[in-house]
Structures are given as C-alpha cells and as structure tokens.
C-alpha cells in the first residue's frame, strides 16, 4: 500500500470521525446538562436531512437547505422538549430509554407518512462537487474536505460558546449543580429547552451535510445514533472534548480497520476467505475498542463522573 493511499485513508477516517462528532456533540451536551439519554437524537438527524432535501428540491439552494435543516431540527427539538422530554428529567434512565424509543417510532413513521416510502434526493452543490488535488498529488473530494472544516468550526464554536458566553456559564453550572443555578435565579426550564434545541440543531445539520453524500431515507438515523453513543461513551459522557477525540478514534478505527484487517488476514487465508473474515472483524472493531476503553477507564477517556 502506497503512502499516498494511506494518507488518503487517514483523511477518510478523520472525515468520518468529524461527521460523527457533529452528531455526538449534541447528544453529549444534552446528557451532560440534563442527564437525559436521548435515543431519538437519530430522528432529529433524519428530520434535518429531510428538511434540507425538501428545501433544496423546492429552491435549488444548498445554503437555504442547510438553514432549513438547522431550523427544522431545532424547532422539532424544542417542541419535543416542551411536550415530552421535560417530563423525563426526573425519571430514571429506564423510562428515558423507553420514552425516547417511542419517539423514534413516532418520528420514523411520521416522516414516512409525510414524505412517502422512497428515499429523497439531496446532492452536493456544484461549487463543492468533484475532487481537488492536495499537495503530494492526493485527489480528494472537495465536499469531504469541507465537512472536515465545518466540523472543526463547529467544535471551535461550541468551545467558545461554553467557555466564553453567558449561556455557556449556565450550561456548565447546570452540569455541576442543578440546585445552584435555580438558586441563582436562572430559568432552568428555559435553559433546558435551549440546550435541547441546540443539540437538535447540531444533529439536523449533521443529517443535512451527510445526507448530501448518502441516502436521505427513513431509518437513516439509527445506525448513526448507535455510533454516536459509542463515541460519547468512549470520550466520557458530557465532555465535548471527549466527543471530538472519541469521534476521531472511532472514525479512524472503523476506516483503517476495514482496510487493514482483510490485508492482515490474507497472510493466513486465501483472498476470498480473508476479505470475508477481515470484514467481519472490521465491523466489530469499534465495539471492541469501546469495550476496551471502558474496561480500562470505566468513565470513558474524559468522563468526570460515572
């Protein structure tokens, strides 16, 4: 395997990881502040993608589509928070799992009811399509590079939001001591709605960005949801930094595992068997990584509390 291919694959792993980060950031934020396990986060990702596809189809503008995904998912998130989620904060994890599982059913079939059973069309905009040549002669899709940049910008934005703004102070206070912020006269209910809508908007944005190079269809959120959980658990629940590092670890493990494990197996088996066994191992790799991290560090890499 040439060095160029290796670098390209590392870039791919990085890009996959950044994409996971967009999804995981909202999830870990919501868990950190409100202590809520939200299985319906994948549905918000799906809603973002569907809003984007609908708007792009109607207007032809990718930027409007992205705005629609942010707005659509944030509104859906705020609504769900007001109607359902806020009744779950003082319930145990079990009830949260069941209630948000019920939300998945409602959102998935509701979306199918509105948009039909067939996948929707959403494409990379012209000004971002096609490959560009990187130094060293690597041809790499411009859109994927853009994804990496957008993801890093979001990470930076979140960091600034949490460390430099008033809302950030409240969020940090909420993570540490709920009674405290109530005592300070902050409207907790409003804070929670805002945080949930923010998390939802991030998921929606991820859905729209990824939907452009994948399939916009009902059920697209669940596989990513599981991966996002893997990410935040590896990183330590509630930690944005952990989510970023966890996401990149998962992205690299998954991508490089898929390439190297079949190659390694070829040392022992004939090519057909090797690719088959290698692929099986590769699909288990991130779960092995997660289990290993938790066995060594039971609260994840950057988790403060269990």
């Amino acid at each position, binding site marked *: 395997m040439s060095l160029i291919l290796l670098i390209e694959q590392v870039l791919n792993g990085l890009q996959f990881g950044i994409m996971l980060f967009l999804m995981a950031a909202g999830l870990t934020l919501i868990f950190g502040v409100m202590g809520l396990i939200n299985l319906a986060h994948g549905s918000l990702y799906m809603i973002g993608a569907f809003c984007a596809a609908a708007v792009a189809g109607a207007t032809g503008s990718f930027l409007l589509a992205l705005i629609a995904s942010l707005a659509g998912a944030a509104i859906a998130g705020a609504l769900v928070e007001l109607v359902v989620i806020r009744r779950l904060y003082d319930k145990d994890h079990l009830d949260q799992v069941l209630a948000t599982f019920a939300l998945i059913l409602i959102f998935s079939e509701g979306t199918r009811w509105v948009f039909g059973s067939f996948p929707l069309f959403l494409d990379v905009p012209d000004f971002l399509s096609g490959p560009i040549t990187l130094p060293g002669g690597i041809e790499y899709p411009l859109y994927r590079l853009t994804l990496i940049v957008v993801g890093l910008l979001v990470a930076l934005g979140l960091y600034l939001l949490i460390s430099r703004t008033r809302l950030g102070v409240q969020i940090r206070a909420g993570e540490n001591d709920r009674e405290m912020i109530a005592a300070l006269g902050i409207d907790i209910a409003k804070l929670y709605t805002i945080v949930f809508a923010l998390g939802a908007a991030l998921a929606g944005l991820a859905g729209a960005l990824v939907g452009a190079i994948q399939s916009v269809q009902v059920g697209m959120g669940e596989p990513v949801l599981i991966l996002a959980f893997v990410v935040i658990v590896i990183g330590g629940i509630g930690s944005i930094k952990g989510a970023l590092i966890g996401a990149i670890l998962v992205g690299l493990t998954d991508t490089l595992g898929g390439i190297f494990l079949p190659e390694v197996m070829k040392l022992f088996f004939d090519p057909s068997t090797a690719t088959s066994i290698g692929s099986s191992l590769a*699909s288990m790799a991130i779960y092995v990584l997660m289990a290993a991290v938790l066995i060594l560090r*039971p*609260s994840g890499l950057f988790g403060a509390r269990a």
Partner: protein
Amino acid sequence: MIRESYLNALTVLVLLAVPLWAVVADEPFTITLMTRAAIFAIAAIGLNIALGIGGLVSLGHAVFFGIGGYAMGILAHHAQTYTAVFEWPLLIEGTKSMPVIWLVAVVLSSLAALVIGILSLRTTGVYFIMITLAFGQMFFFFAISWAEYGGEDGLSIYVRNGFPGLNTLVPIEFYGLCLGVLLLVLVFAWRLSKSPFGLALNAARQAPVRVETVGLDPVRLKLVAFVISGAITGLAGAMFADLNRFVSPTMFSWQTSGEIMIFIILGGVGRLFGPVVGALVFVALEHWLGGLSDYWHIYLGLLLLLIVLFGRGGLIGMVSGRRAVHD
C-alpha cells in the same frame, strides 16, 4: 384499584384460559401468539432479575437470547443434515431433543454472561448500558458474517424439536410446555427475590456501602445475578427459536435487547409479574395495531409514551395503584 396479587392471579388465568378457548374455537394462531408472549415473558423475567432486583440496566440481553437461539439452530441443523458439530477434539453430534438443547443454551449463555459480566461490571450507570450494548453489537455483526450458519439469512429448522412425552408440533402442547417453563421460572424468580441472596442483591442496589460493611461484595452479588439472568434469557432464546423453527442474527440486534426491556417497563420494573403482563400486552398490541394501518408504529409509539409519562410503575402500577418497587 385492584390488589397486585389479584392482578397476578388474573394474569395466570389469562395464560390458562385464552389458549383453552382458542382450542375450542379452533383459533390455533391465538395459541401461537400466546406462546410468543410466554417465551418473551421468560426472557424478560431473566432480565428483570438483573434489572429489577440488581439495578443492572443491560441493553445487551439480546446476546443471551441469541446464544440460546443459535444453540438450538446449530444443534438442530447438524441433526437435520446428519453432520457432526465438532469432530475434534471430541465428537459432538447435533440433536433434535429439546431438553438437551435447553441445557446447552443455558450453559453457553451463562458462560457468556460470566465473561461479559466480569468486564461490564467495572462500569456503572449509563456506561454499563452502553458497554452491554457494545457486546450485543459484536455478537450481531459476528452472526451476520458467520457464513457457515447462514449469516444474515439465518438457519431454518424444518421440524420443531422434540420433547419426551409431547408432540411439540401441536400448538397447544408446545404452548403447555412453554407455560410450564414460564411458571417454573416465575416460582424461581419469586423464591430468589425472597432468599438471602435476593435480599442482599436488593440491598446492593440501594445501599452498596452498607452491603460492603457487612462483608459482602456488591460487585460479586451483581455478577451472580447477571449470570442467572443471562441463563434464563438464553433458555428463552432456545424456545423462541423452536417456536419459529428459525434463527437469525436479528435475535442479537439491539432492537431485541430494547424489546425485552420494554416488556419489563411496560408491565412494571421489579415486579414479579411485570414482564409477563408487559409481554402479553406488547404481543397483543403488535398484533391488533398492525392490522389497523401501514403507519401503526405511530400508535404504538404514542401508547408507549403515554404509559411512561403518566403511568407510574408500568401497567401493574397503574392498575394496582402501588408505586414502583424500583424507583
């Protein structure tokens, strides 16, 4: 308000009367549905030992359900093709005998639960939920690519396995067998919760420090509970495979883990009959709502949501008015 014990008696009555009515009315499919509910109930009672008494929220019990299923699938597959499971280091032949299959299912799922338990119990809370989920996903992806036993296609067993003295092909006889196992498991779970072990486990959930001061190791207590729990769910997996005469990786999926957990929450966590009521109601809902519209998942979702938001302690809690045992 009805007392919980009356409600439990009513549940047993439903388990006995509905299938008998179905025999008289010649509605064999109702018996199949009841068998499905009974088997799901056994799986959920297994999980309830870890979850209800031990407070271990496992989102990976599909592992044991699937191991039980594949124990049945693999043994019966080899019996039906007249090949050996292993020829070396010692000859192991397939079998079509239910008791033998059940024994294998229980032993293998206990072993898996022991290993997974030792590793997972290093974590607590949400991390425990997620590490059990991770083990579930590993088994799921492994089963999908295990070409020798059908991969994603799964394994079809053409004729249901046999149980001495019964014709398991007759729906009501197979149901009777499953009901018998269900009642035995119920008695076992009841005795367990009242035993010194059960009381210590309960205490380990509520006040681990106090348990430690009297010289008991809470992690060890939880590990034993996890293994027992996995063994029972594994047994249910083998029976479920025999009900369908089919196994597939779906049995290992995280949705399966979620469903088993839903039965418990629906019925009432930590209650002896919670899983039974939950499984009965879920199977009935799935059957009736499915006939209503293509979009029946919406109704199912709304119903589940209402129960979580407004029902305290699941269905049993709602009817009996008593607060949940587990908070």
